[in-house]
């Protein structure tokens, strides 16, 4: 039985060899920034984290980056751990908007501040104090760009949508997720204002996941074949799952002149490397860039300024000035916190410009 103890201890020691470097880096004279990242298994999040690490290395910052692996409870535990270790300034991709106020309160109690990206913090979280920032892209805009891309496509190929009627298969992210709600509103409202009639032939969540999207599409194609003319997904992962499904189900016209060899255009959001590759092969039609470098650089500069100068109020971060006008989306819809919102622009990515990102 003492063997068990011995083995466990050896294992633990082996473990320490791996992470000894981590702790030896943690010198007290360095600027300390904590990063709480919701799930490194997602491409956008991983790109965001990689850029944070790069920026930290350049500035000689002791960056402690924690992966919540999709678990709100784990993220709160990690925040507690980092606060105990003396980290006060944070860059956060929250797991859930509802938990952000609690996180902000804990950070404020420790005398620090934070910049939130990707998943919006609540208005209440930013109201906890002036040292809490939004460094993210308004999700409505992503949906609006998707609508514009769709409009361009059918303006060039009017025979594919007679009478400006769109019969859409729509793959959603996790329901109730702020990005899910706002991206949908942005897309549908803009299409309507552009004069389209949108019939949602099928609309369901695939939880941001490519394999769930592919499964869902397989089912939809069996049920609704021939009844739709456009496929929209709320992220690239799901869009690529849909592309795979269309290919395996033979919905391919092998005519790339309209920008895709698929019978119907598929549109995503994020502009991940995989998505750009798929565009290069004329599969995915278009996407919208959610700028991982822009968001992480903005958030990092805000946290760095707070850690070194004590405040980031009013500064320009990564060339972006604090917002001055409210938009319709939380938390930037509240004039009381608008100066704490740094809106990193989305960008439509089409055949015209995708090569710039590769």
């Amino acid at each position, binding site marked *: 039985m003492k063997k*068990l103890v011995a083995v466990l201890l050896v294992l633990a020691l082996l*473990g320490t060899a791996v992470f000894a470097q981590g702790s030896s880096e943690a010198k007290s004279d360095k600027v300390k920034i904590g990063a709480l990242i919701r799930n490194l298994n997602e491409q956008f999040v991983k790109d965001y984290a990689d850029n944070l690490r790069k920026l930290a290395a350049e500035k000689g910052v002791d960056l402690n980056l924690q992966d919540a692996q*999709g678990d709100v409870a784990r993220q709160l535990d990690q925040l507690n751990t980092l606060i105990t270790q003396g980290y006060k300034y944070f860059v956060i991709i929250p797991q859930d*908007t*509802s938990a952000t106020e609690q996180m902000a309160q804990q950070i404020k109690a420790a005398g620090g501040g934070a910049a939130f990206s990707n998943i919006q913090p609540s208005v209440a979280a930013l109201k906890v104090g002036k040292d809490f920032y939004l460094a993210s892209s308004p999700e409505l805009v992503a949906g609006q760009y998707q609508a514009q891309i769709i409009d361009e496509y059918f303006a060039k190929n009017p025979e594919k949508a007679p009478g400006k009627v769109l019969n859409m298969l729509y793959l959603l992210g996790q329901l109730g997720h702020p990005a899910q709600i706002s991206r949908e509103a942005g897309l549908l409202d803009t299409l309507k204002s552009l004069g389209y009639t949108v019939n949602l032939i099928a609309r369901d969540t695939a939880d941001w996941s490519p394999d769930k999207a592919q499964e869902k599409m397989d089912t939809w194609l069996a049920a609704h074949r021939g009844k739709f003319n456009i496929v929209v997904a709320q992220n690239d992962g799901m869009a690529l799952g849909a592309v795979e499904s269309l290919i395996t189900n033979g919905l391919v016209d092998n005519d790339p002149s309209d920008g895709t060899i698929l019978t119907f255009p598929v549109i995503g959001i994020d502009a991940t490397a995989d998505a750009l590759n798929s565009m290069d092969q004329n599969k995915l039609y278009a996407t919208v860039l959610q700028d991982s470098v822009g968001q992480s650089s903005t958030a990092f500069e805000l946290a760095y300024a707070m850690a070194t100068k004590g405040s980031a109020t009013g500064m320009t971060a990564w060339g972006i000035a604090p917002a001055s006008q409210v938009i319709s989306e939380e938390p930037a819809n509240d004039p009381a916190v608008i100066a704490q919102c740094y809106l990193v622009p989305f960008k439509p990515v089409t055949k015209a410009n995708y090569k710039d990102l590769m």
Partner: protein
Amino acid sequence: MEMKKLLNDSKKLASQYTTWVTFVGLLLLLSVLTKGNALRWNSIRNLLIAESVRSFAALGVGMIIITKGIDLSIGYVVCLTASVAASFAQNPDYASAIYAGQSFPLIVPVVAAVAAGGLFGLFNGYLIAYGKLPPFIATLGSMSIAKGLQLIYTKAAVVGSLNQNFKNISQGSVGPIPNLIIYVIIAAFIVWVVLRHTRQGTNFYAIGGNAQAARVSGINVERELMMVYTYAGILYGIAGTLLASRLGLANSLTANGMELDAIAAVTVGGVSQSGGVGSVSGMMVGVFTMGLINYGMSFLGVDSYYQQLVKGFIIIVAVYFDMKKYARRS
């Protein structure tokens, strides 16, 4: 001679208290690695809070494993009960609330979640005791049912914006002691009383040791099995309530994978998969050993990918020695 005896004695002690020795060993190791930082009250408090909800799951599944059963439905049952609790605690002015515009007394979410958990336990217990389904299969089925119900009930949306009174259940503290820790102590004490000081507890051990013999000696095996799963379900209901209260939300990802954490923890804590063996202290030490590993690695900034690896090895090693120990005995 003296020396040898001492060595033998300490060997014996170590084998008897493996889980404790491991726990203390890890604690010392971590405190050396962090130059004492990990042993500060703040850190220990963090650790206790982090493991508190899992403790309830572990106490439940620990009792089940003592009867030689297993429960794979924990994660999703806790997810369901957390969602149920959260749905009755949303701010009435929150537009996307499940019961928008209505507010409920604080007792409603707690009772609803505990009832949901208890019913699920009863269902599991009935399938296993009277339906004679293998526990692995029965709870695999109910896991999926719980997941389905959670998605239907919440329409797959986040149940957020919970009221402060409800959040205070978990987030409050008595002086420096967080409420959560007090709940865990109470629950562990009750489970200890049931296991060690009631006829029913003795029956659980007897059934796990040898169900046939237990039946021959007059124990109503079916009834006791149904009870043990129901007790566990009630504990999951409490776990769900506390988790929702702590996080201030519940969603379809809440508590995912908790069954594995809980089963691993009690196994590391010396509750044998062969049935009939295990103690409340072992379960709790198991939970905090796993917690310490999680917490320590997170404290030291170990890459999350390595954390999974180390955890996996530790579980395998613990079960390996556990199996060896009881293989030798029989």
